[in-house]
């Protein structure tokens, strides 16, 4: 028996293989950038959401989506949707494991970060404190932050005080 895939399902299958231009070990879907593929009024629509507002990879991601689909004969419109705002909490467990294996410490959860000015004031007051980040090389929690901003806006630079290796930490967003 053969099953016929809808165009949207076919597009999902194709896009499943697309990886992030900056961190090629994880896919756009695992990262939570690829949100939806749907049939719109004017044909296929692929919904993506930016990570950081200024992420320079977004243009590349849009091009990758379009060219991957075009290669299979599918024309699609790429729609950028801001809400709900992308969060690192959407990253799958498999993606976190891949990041760790790649040498990037995966992000802590940030779902508990509340909004409201009282929380903003509180956040500012305790800003110097940071949660322990485990070294992706040796697993030690004896690490220190070298810089708030690493090789990209989404990462901070850390150093392990046990194995002495520097590493990137994917910041909660």
């Amino acid at each position, binding site marked *: 028996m053969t099953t016929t895939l809808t165009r949207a399902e076919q597009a999902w299958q194709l896009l499943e293989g697309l990886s992030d231009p900056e961190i090629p070990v994880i896919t756009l879907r695992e990262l939570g950038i690829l949100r939806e593929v749907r049939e719109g009024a004017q044909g296929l629509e692929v919904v993506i959401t930016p990570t*950081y*507002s200024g992420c*320079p990879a977004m243009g590349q991601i849009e091009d990758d989506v379009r060219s991957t689909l075009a290669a299979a004969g599918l024309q699609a419109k790429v729609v950028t949707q*801001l809400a709900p705002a992308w969060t690192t909490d959407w990253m799958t467990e498999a993606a976190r494991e891949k990041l760790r294996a790649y040498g990037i410490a995966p992000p802590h959860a940030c779902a508990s970060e509340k909004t409201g000015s009282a929380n*903003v004031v509180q956040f*500012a007051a305790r800003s110097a404190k940071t949660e322990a980040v485990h070294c992706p090389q040796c697993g030690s929690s004896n690490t220190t932050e070298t810089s*708030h901003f690493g090789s990209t806006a989404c990462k901070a630079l850390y150093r392990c005080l046990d194995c002495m290796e520097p590493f990137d930490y994917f910041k909660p967003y």
Partner: protein
Amino acid sequence: MQAPVDYLLHLADNALVLGQRNAEWCGHGPILEEDIALSNNSLDLIGQARLLYQHAATLMGQGATEDTLAYFRDVPDFKNYTLCELPHLPLMSATACGDRDFATTIVRNFLYSSLMVLVWDRLQLSKDEQLAAIAAKSLKEVRYHLRHSRDWLVRLGDGTDESHQRAQAALDALMPYTSEFWVASAQEAAAQANGCGLDMAELRADWNTIVDAALQEATLQRPADSAFVPTGKQGVHSEHLGFVLAEMQSLARQHPGATW
């Protein structure tokens, strides 16, 4: 509901002009990590500006784009706080010149980020859905900007005699420019009236809490409030904005519509 275009431009211009200013450190940071940190800070700010300009351009129609708004408006059209356009220098007069002062950069980023964590938090409730969506993203980013600048403020203020003196001088020079935050401009009043903006005066107590706690930790003295109120958000700027725009806009104006 849609926010008044001028209000969106005010928010966008703040982000773009400060993003452009902080980008002046690119390749000149005091240490490699700070070079990268300030560039990433600029990337976030310019990203926020782009989202806001895109939204404003959609509402304006008539061929407006993020590029026409960023590159083809002149000084009186810009609605950013005067604070954002000042050079990375302690105040000087006439033809005096100096190098970039890291303390000035840090103090400005701290004063602005302390405000914007509160502004973006409130604007998540804006009746303009697109503005609320941009606010939710920007809040996540400005939290890291505040963390970064606050840590450095404490390090410089509670550091050596030289770093303390420079941080104090930067604070003395920049604090008067924050008085502009609290006086509503026409576009802020319009945004507040239609439920897309907020009452800035309501944020003042929280902003003071954030600032005073950090200054105390940094062993810095808050200068007394002065009567000076800058007028950047009304389009009446300091002499510095023209130079910022000249550098930022010259390429786009020499080659209008160029792509690569």
